[in-house]
C-alpha cells in the first residue's frame, strides 16, 4: 500500500529524513512516534505527495511520487484522509460545508452527500454543530471536524498529525475513539504523535523516529 525505499529528504535548513525504509500494509495502525523535529510530519507529507524525496522512492498505491503527474497526485489524495497539524479547515464555510467538500469534489449527488455528512457528524458527535463555523468550535470539536472531513469518503489510508495536541483528557479520548472506529472499518491509520501515553491505548505498530531515522519498529 505504502512503500518507502531508502528515502532521503533534505530541507534548506538541513536534512530531515535519512535512509528511510518501511512499508504499510492494508488495515495497519501505525504510530509515528518521536520528538518534535524527528520527521513525523515530513513522512506524512511525503505519503500525501505534498513533499517529494531528494533520494529514494515513495510508492503509494503503486504510484511513485517522483514520477506522479498532477492528476495521479489528485487520485492518491482522493484515497487518503488527512488530519493536518494546522487544521486547514475553511473558515468561511460552516461545519457541514467543510465535511461535504471532499464528496462534492468527487461529484457525489447532493442527497447522498447530505446522508453521509449527517451520518458521520452523528458518529463523531458534532451533529449539533453542523451550522456553526470552525472558529465557533472547541479544540476537540475542531479535531473531530477534521477527522470527519478526512474520513467522509471512506479512504484507504488515514493520516493524522498530532490530532490530540493541546486537548484535555476527555477531548483526547473522544478523538482517539473516533480514530479507532475509523480503523475498525478497515482503514489503515498512520498516527504521528510525540505523546507516549497514546501508544498504550491501541494495539499498533510503532515506528520510533529520531533525527529523521527510524530507530525502532515494534508492535505494542
Amino acid at each position: 500500500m505504502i512503500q518507502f525505499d531508502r528515502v532521503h529528504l533534505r530541507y534548506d535548513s538541513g536534512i530531515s529524513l535519512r535512509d528511510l525504509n518501511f512499508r504499510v500494509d492494508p488495515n495497519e495502525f501505525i504510530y509515528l512516534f518521536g520528538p518534535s523535529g524527528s520527521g513525523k510530519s515530513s513522512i506524512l507529507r511525503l505519503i500525501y505527495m505534498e513533499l517529494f524525496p531528494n533520494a529514494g522512492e515513495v510508492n503509494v498505491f503503486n504510484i511513485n511520487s517522483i514520477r506522479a503527474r498532477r492528476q495521479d497526485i489528485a487520485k492518491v489524495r482522493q484515497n487518503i484522509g488527512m488530519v493536518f497539524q494546522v487544521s486547514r479547515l475553511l473558515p468561511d464555510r460552516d461545519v457541514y460545508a467543510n465535511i461535504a467538500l471532499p464528496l462534492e469534489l468527487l461529484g457525489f449527488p447532493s442527497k447522498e452527500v447530505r446522508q453521509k455528512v449527517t451520518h458521520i457528524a452523528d458518529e463523531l458527535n458534532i451533529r449539533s454543530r453542523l451550522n456553526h463555523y470552525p472558529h465557533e468550535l472547541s479544540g476537540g470539536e475542531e479535531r473531530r471536524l477534521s477527522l470527519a472531513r478526512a474520513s467522509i469518503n471512506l479512504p484507504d489510508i488515514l493520516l493524522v498529525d498530532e490530532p490530540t495536541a493541546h486537548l484535555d483528557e476527555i477531548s483526547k479520548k473522544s478523538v482517539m475513539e473516533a480514530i479507532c472506529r475509523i480503523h475498525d472499518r478497515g482503514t489503515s491509520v498512520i498516527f504521528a504523535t510525540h505523546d507516549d501515553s497514546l501508544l498504550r491505548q491501541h494495539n499498533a505498530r510503532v515506528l520510533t523516529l529520531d533525527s529523521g531515522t527510524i530507530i525502532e519498529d515494534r508492535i505494542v
Partner: protein
Amino acid sequence: MKLNYIIREGIVGIRRSTMAFMNSVFSVTIALVLVAVGVLFVDNGLEFIGQLQADYDLEIFLENEADAGIKQELATIISEYPGIFRMDYLSKEDAAALYNAEFGEDVLSLLDDNPLPSSFRVTFEETYRSTNYIQAFINSMEALPMVDEIMFKRDLFDRVQGIMKSIYVVAAAAIFLIILSTVFLTSNNLRLMILSRYDFIETVRLLGASDFMVKAPFFLEGGLLGFIGGVFAILIISGFEFALKYFHIIDLPSRIMNHPELMIGTLLFGIALSSLGMLKTVRRMLRFVA
C-alpha cells in the same frame, strides 16, 4: 454531479469575496467602457468625416442630343461596372429643380430653354474608393458616346481619403493600446482577487481536487464577472450617449444601441477577458500548490 459543484462554487465564490469581486467588476467595466468608447469614437469620427464628402463621388454629364435609348444603354454600362455602390439619373428637369432649390431662381425664367444637361451621379463602394480606380472608370466613360463631361473633385476626394486612412491607423493603434492596458489593469485585479482565495485553492487541492476541479469554478466566476462588467459598460455608454442628446450637446450619428454587434462584442470581450484572466491566474497559482 461535478457540474453542480462547479456551478455552485462559481456562484458561491462571488458571495465569499464580494468586495474583491466588485472591485474586479469595476475594473472590467472601466476596461470595457474604454474599449467600447474607443470603437464608438472612431466610428463617429469616420461618420463625421464621411459627411464632409459629397453625397456622390462623381457626376457624368450627357450631351443634349442623348436620347432615351442611349441613356438607358449608358445606365446599364455604368451600373454593371465593378465597384459601383449607387447610381442616380438626373434628368434636365431634375437638374433645373436642383438649381432652383440651391440658388432660389427658376432657370427657365432666366433663359428660354433649359440649358442644364441630364447626368448620372455615381458613388463607389468603400473598397473601390481610390483615385486610381476612379480615374480608370472616368477614362472608360469618356470613351463612350454622348458623354459630354465628367466632374470629379479629385482634390477634396484625396484629402478626405487621406484623413480617413490616418484615422484608421491612429484608431487601430489606439484601440490596440487600450485593449493592452485593459488586459493589464484587469489581470492585476483578478490576481488580487484570487490571491485572497489562496487558502481555499490549497485546501481543495490537498483534499484531492484535480486541477480541472480547482480551475473550473474560477473560470465560470470569471465569465459571470465579465458578463456583469459588460452589461454595466453598455449601460454606462448608453446613459452617456442619452445625456449628450438630452442636454443638446451633440446627437451622435453612431450610438452603441444602433450596433448590436458592438454590444455583443463588448459582452464577449468582457467574458473572455475575465474568464481567461482568471484561468491564467489560477493556473499560475497552482504551480505553487503541490
